[in-house]
């Protein structure tokens, strides 16, 4: 293979690698995002074949759904008929596969065939030896703070050269390099190394691509991380230079060296008989189609059920709101909104992406590095630094030690159940533009601030009728001893806490100069009596922090009290609701007990499921809150507020969808794949996890990095693709997705289902093959 061949090959394989990022930068992502140019089902099939993965959950799962009526038989029949054309054929296939367990033996796996052959040849576990050393080297090279001894030259050289340097310098060479020609094993150019090792390791040229693919996919966690780092080295705080060809060159070098170590005389290239490979039985064409039907019927049953409720929902005319609250669109915030509204009818709530348009890097007072506080695809344009203000006490003291000891057995701190905390002594964040040293500008210009405020308020349709208190709730999730801390955080803030965004957003809106600017430039009048109050909802502990730095009038103070009382009630109801799926075994006495249990989960060192995250998500609804107000959404939906009346040409919708569809589909699909085959697409059990170099997780000490989500996060999930429901006319809805290439790709290739609800006629339409078609619930035509 020549250099350009290798490069083009690596480009091809890089697509097959799962996308993983350093654990600190964890965000929910579609693991197969590289395949979004393909139809969902084709991609699923192709990737499953590559990884020997099971593309669907097993037969018993679907059988259970059928018996529990979670797959509507009528819907299933309809879908089957569409797929197999005639009822007779559909019946035959159903009979053939219904409830038949399908087995796949790992001896038939695609990955591992070459290693198997070498093991036979050398009578030594070549792959295990080579990968063991490679993983150690990679860990050392990329390490961000676990190792106490940095790899020489790791920060200067790229990976291949660093290894060359290390081995070249040694006085005693470690096995397997002792007594071998280092120049030959590690030539200066990594491409040369790949070329010569390939000729040695895999003489038949026609097998080389297969072999390289196996080499990469066999360590797909590491390779995936390297592919991400190759694109963006700044993902690591201490950046490292590493590329896929470096990785491949070192891997092949090690394999060759170990073979030579055991068979020193094998100068001629090895020849090995090749064991056959049987694809996974689910990938059989008919079988795949059958399960695809089951899966589709399952999705349709869940979606239709809720859609029916939404349509038949009575629209209540809204009262003049006494409170307004802007929440993150997150499905978990849905519960809180629901409860607040049911207790206090005079509140109106809004949902939007939890970064509230504040796209910045934020550096906390005691942090060394700034962190991104906006959705993943957005490149932040400015940096906001906070000066040290809060007195953080991390020192070792007898008191802390005793607390730690008590925490081992009684993790709950015995404080009264303070679910709402009001912090009044929060110093304001310096927002004004100031000169910076770091490249990115610090702070905003005035015009930027008012533009930001206007865009956000317009998107959610809040341009008039401001209540005197408007709450802006970011959210976070506090859990002890949990390496996936970012997975429960706010997706729009790159998995971090939304506190800072909410505070900045409110501070902007509370500034008199911004308000005058808003009035003059955009004709938006925010009354002087209106105060924006930032808050932070902890979805794990079900508590809320409110940050009040402004002076507020006595009347508002009175209102605030009322709101806090309501909030406390709502949080209690929330806790009761959220605790049930979490601890099915322990009886819940009352709301206080539920809150206590939730807090215990959050504080406990021993909790693999601090909360359930997005486990029940199935919808993404873009529309007025009136559409769903009063409806129990069961945490199924992301709720983005959108006022179709303010958007006659669909421009706002385009803007919203360009963020909502990639982010929510990423979350949904991350759960989907991790649940479907947790062994290949997911991370396996959380219990034996080991932190590697502060950037990844693995099982044991010498193994591949983990991909996707752990079993404990997804085991209650029902894998369905999201349904994006837009409250807009069919034409504008279609136009909105076509405007944005990435969104169009996701929708057109069926990675999500897309529907619109006409706000005037109430008619549903669904997207298929580039068109919107009228949709009828139950019977008739399904997507």
């Amino acid at each position, binding site marked *: 293979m020549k250099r350009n061949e290798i490069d083009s090959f690596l480009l091809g394989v890089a697509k097959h690698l799962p996308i993983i990022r350093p*654990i*600190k930068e964890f965000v929910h992502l579609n693991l197969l995002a590289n395949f979004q140019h393909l139809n969902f089902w084709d991609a699923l099939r192709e990737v499953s074949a590559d990884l020997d993965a099971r593309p669907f959950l097993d037969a018993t799962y679907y059988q259970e759904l059928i018996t529990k009526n979670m797959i509507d038989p009528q819907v299933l029949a309809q879908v089957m008929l569409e797929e197999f054309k005639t009822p007779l054929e559909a019946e035959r296939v159903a009979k053939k596969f219904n409830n038949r367990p399908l*087995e*796949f*033996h*790992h001896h038939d796996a695609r990955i591992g065939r070459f290693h198997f052959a070498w093991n036979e040849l050398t009578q030594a576990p070549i792959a*295990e*030896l080579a990968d063991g050393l490679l993983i*150690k080297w990679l*860990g*050392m090279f*990329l390490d*961000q*703070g*676990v*190792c*106490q*001894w*940095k790899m*020489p030259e790791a920060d200067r050289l790229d990976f291949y050269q660093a290894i060359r*340097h*290390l*081995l070249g*310098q*040694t006085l*005693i*060479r*470690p*096995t397997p390099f002792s007594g071998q020609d280092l120049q030959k094993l590690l030539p200066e150019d990594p491409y040369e190394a790949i070329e010569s090792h390939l000729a040695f390791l895999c003489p038949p040229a026609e097998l080389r691509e297969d072999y390289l693919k196996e080499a990469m996919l066999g360590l797909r966690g590491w390779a995936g991380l390297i592919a991400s780092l190759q694109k963006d080295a700044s993902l690591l705080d201490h950046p490292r230079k590493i590329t896929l060809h470096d990785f491949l060159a070192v891997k092949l070098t090690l394999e060759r060296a170990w073979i030579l170590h*055991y068979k020193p005389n094998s100068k001629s290239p090895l020849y090995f008989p090749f064991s056959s490979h049987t694809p*996974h039985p689910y990938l059989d064409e008919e079988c795949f189609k059958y399960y695809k039907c089951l899966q589709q019927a399952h999705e349709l049953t869940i979606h239709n059920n809720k859609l029916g409720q939404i349509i038949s929902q009575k629209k209540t005319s809204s009262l003049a709101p006494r409170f307004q609250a802007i929440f993150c669109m997150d499905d978990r915030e849905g519960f809180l909104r629901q409860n607040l509204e049911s207790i206090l009818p005079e509140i109106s709530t809004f949902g939007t992406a939890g970064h509230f348009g504040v796209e910045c890097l934020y550096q906390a007072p*005691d*942090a*060394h590095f700034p962190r991104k506080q906006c959705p993943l695809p957005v490149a932040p344009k400015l940096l906001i630094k906070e000066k040290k203000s809060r007195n953080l006490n*991390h020192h070792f003291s007898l008191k802390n030690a005793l607390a730690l000891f008590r925490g*081992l*057995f009684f993790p709950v701190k015995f404080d009264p159940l303070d679910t709402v905390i009001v912090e009044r002594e929060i110093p304001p964040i310096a927002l004004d533009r100031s000169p910076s040293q770091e490249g990115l500008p610090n702070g905003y210009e005035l015009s930027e601030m008012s533009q930001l405020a206007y865009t956000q308020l317009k998107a959610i349709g809040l341009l008039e009728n401001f209540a005197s208190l408007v709450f802006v709730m970011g959210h976070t999730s506090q859990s*002890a*001893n*949990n*390496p996936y801390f970012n997975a429960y955080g706010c997706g729009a803030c790159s998995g971090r806490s939304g506190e800072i965004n909410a505070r900045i957003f409110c501070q902007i809106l509370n500034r008199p100069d911004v308000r005058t600017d808003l009035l003059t430039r955009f004709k938006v009048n925010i009354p002087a009596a209106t105060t924006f109050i930032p808050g932070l909802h902890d979805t794990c502990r079900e508590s809320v922090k409110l940050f009040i730095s402004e002076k507020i009038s006595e009347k508002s103070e009175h209102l605030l009290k009322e709101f806090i009382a309501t909030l406390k009630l709502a949080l209690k109801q929330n806790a009761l609701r959220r605790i049930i799926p979490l601890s099915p*075994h322990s009886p819940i006495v009352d709301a206080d007990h539920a809150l206590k249990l939730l807090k215990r989960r959050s504080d*406990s*060192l*021993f*909790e*693999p499921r601090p909360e359930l995250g997005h486990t029940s998500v199935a919808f993404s609804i873009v529309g007025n809150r009136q559409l769903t107000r009063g409806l129990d959404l069961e945490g199924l939906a992301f709720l983005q507020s959108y006022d179709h009346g303010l958007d006659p040409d669909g421009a706002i919708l385009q803007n919203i969808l360009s963020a909502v569809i990639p982010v929510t589909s990423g979350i949904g699909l991350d759960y989907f794949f991790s649940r479907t085959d947790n*062994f290949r697409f997911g991370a396996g059990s959380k*219990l*034996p*996890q*080991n*932190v*590697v*170099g*502060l950037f990844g997780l693995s*099982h*044991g*000490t*010498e193994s591949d990095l983990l991909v996707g989500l752990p079993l404990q996060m997804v085991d209650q999930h029902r894998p369905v693709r999201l349904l994006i429901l837009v409250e807009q006319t069919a034409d504008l809805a279609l136009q909105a997705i076509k405007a944005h290439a990435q969104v169009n790709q996701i929708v057109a290739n069926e990675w999500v289902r897309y529907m619109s609800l006409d706000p005037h006629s109430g008619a549903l339409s669904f997207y298929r093959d580039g068109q919107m078609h009228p949709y009828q619930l139950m019977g008739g035509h399904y997507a």
Partner: protein
Amino acid sequence: MLNTLALTYFTPLLFGLLLLLPYRFSTKTIIRISTIGLSTPFILSLFIAGINSPTELRLFSLKMTHFHFDFILWTDHYGLAYLFLTHFLGLVVLRFSHNYLEGEKGHQRFFATILIFIFGMYLICLAGNMDLFFAGWEIVGISSFFLIAFYRSQNRSISNAWRIYNIYRICDVGLLLSAVIGHLLWHEASSFSQLAELTATEIASIPFKYHLILALFIIFASLGKSGQFPFHNWPSRAMEGPTPSSAIFYGALSIHAGVFLLIRTEVLWSSLPEARILLALIGLATWVFSYFQKKVQANIKGQIAYASTMQIGIMFILLAMKLSPLVMIYLILHALWRCFQMLTSPSVVLQSLTHAQREITLRRPTSNFARRLESTLYSLAINDFMMDVSARGFHFVQWYRLKTLFFFCLRKPVIGTLALVIIQVAAHSWLHSWHGYQHLFTDILSSLSLLYSAQALFVHRSAFKALGALGISLLCDMASIYTVIPGALHGIWLYMLPILPALIIALIVVHPFRELQLQYFHSQGQSHPTRANIFLLCFMIISGMPITTAFFGEDIILAKLIETSYPMAIFTSLSLMMNGLICVRIYVRLFMGRPVAI
């Protein structure tokens, strides 16, 4: 009264066995059972701790015509200290696992194993004599194996569990033989309480050679469990089970068992300067190697593992200085600290974000030679100094040449036997002075037995054949023993009575799988769970676990043998030890491994 109450220490064992029954208990019941199982003995320990002076509790003794086995507990300060550590950490880990393992597959099995492990630890802490101590030692070993291999479908974790079990078992030979030699040297003083009262002159009266061998065996036994040089690499490979089990084993309890053994038997080795120097050297070597290896670990659990072995190296050095009270305090603090570190290791990433990190700035060497030295140390440390006996072989010497020779001998039984006989005769003449060829036939038989065991372990690829070779090896062993010491017949009976049927059943169980190649995993346990469980039981019996009379038979046979010939005792115990390895190999390869995916 107290003697009867002391039976309470059996509760974890009983409850553990209860949980192993095929009945599925509810999560709550499992937690209740384990909590009761661990807290009842704790209450008793509080009573015992109230008694100020070391006490001997005689629970019961098994007496037959030719042998008796005393079940004695000995509560001295060291034992009690370690016992309370076990109680405390056991309860902590139980508390941790309670939520942590909820909903995990194999939940019940995990608690059963933890309970049985803790029971083994009780025996180690409280054993009144070497036999009981050895029983606890074995129980801890086998339960470690099952906790490391908790994820039965992960090939990597099973192979690591298997490697570690091999190390454990090899080192167990040391303990077994030292127990037997102890019996021989002090016929009357077979319990720890009596050992504690031995005077210096009584100890000095033992011939130097025997004393040295005894001390070496004890030290060797402690190396395996405590992960000391050259076995200091296994703890980092053992990080495969759920975090709580790693914390209790490699972090806290079982890794200190070797140190505790040395403290217990201090009387037996500390009067020998040679033994103490060796101990200090081992501690030093472990300390040095682990120091460098710890520094280059990029994963947090591996780093904790090497840090542990490093600290235990220091404990070895302190022991060599006869500072056992200090070591005991050190041990307890260290165990608590490591357990805590291990349990909270998942939060290290978050901590690195919230706590400002201290930048590690190492002065880079400036001279060329120093740079080369740094690189050398660095790359050797990553490569485990080429001494990872558990996985990569001892590459420091050109091991593969030796390996070729070894396999050559194995494949040519005549040459192999000849070589073994020569070794045996030579060793015998050094120890017992030349006695002519009176034992030649026996020597040949015991060499043959060792050879067959080795063949079963290293050569055979079919489980059926390997078990067959194991049977032949056993028969040769027993024949050789009978020819040289007809008086050991009752021991042979005790040993073979459970083992022969177990072997036959095992042969029947693996018969359908005789075509499967033993160098790969076949995960038949998934489709044939009953067969797997029956084989597991047979394997425990054959390897002489303290569940049948074979455990006592082994003791008697070796005691008789050692009176006659040390080398022959070593050969026999080696081949008995290998029998265990053969069985575990077959069990791992046939019944564990990545399952058929459905």
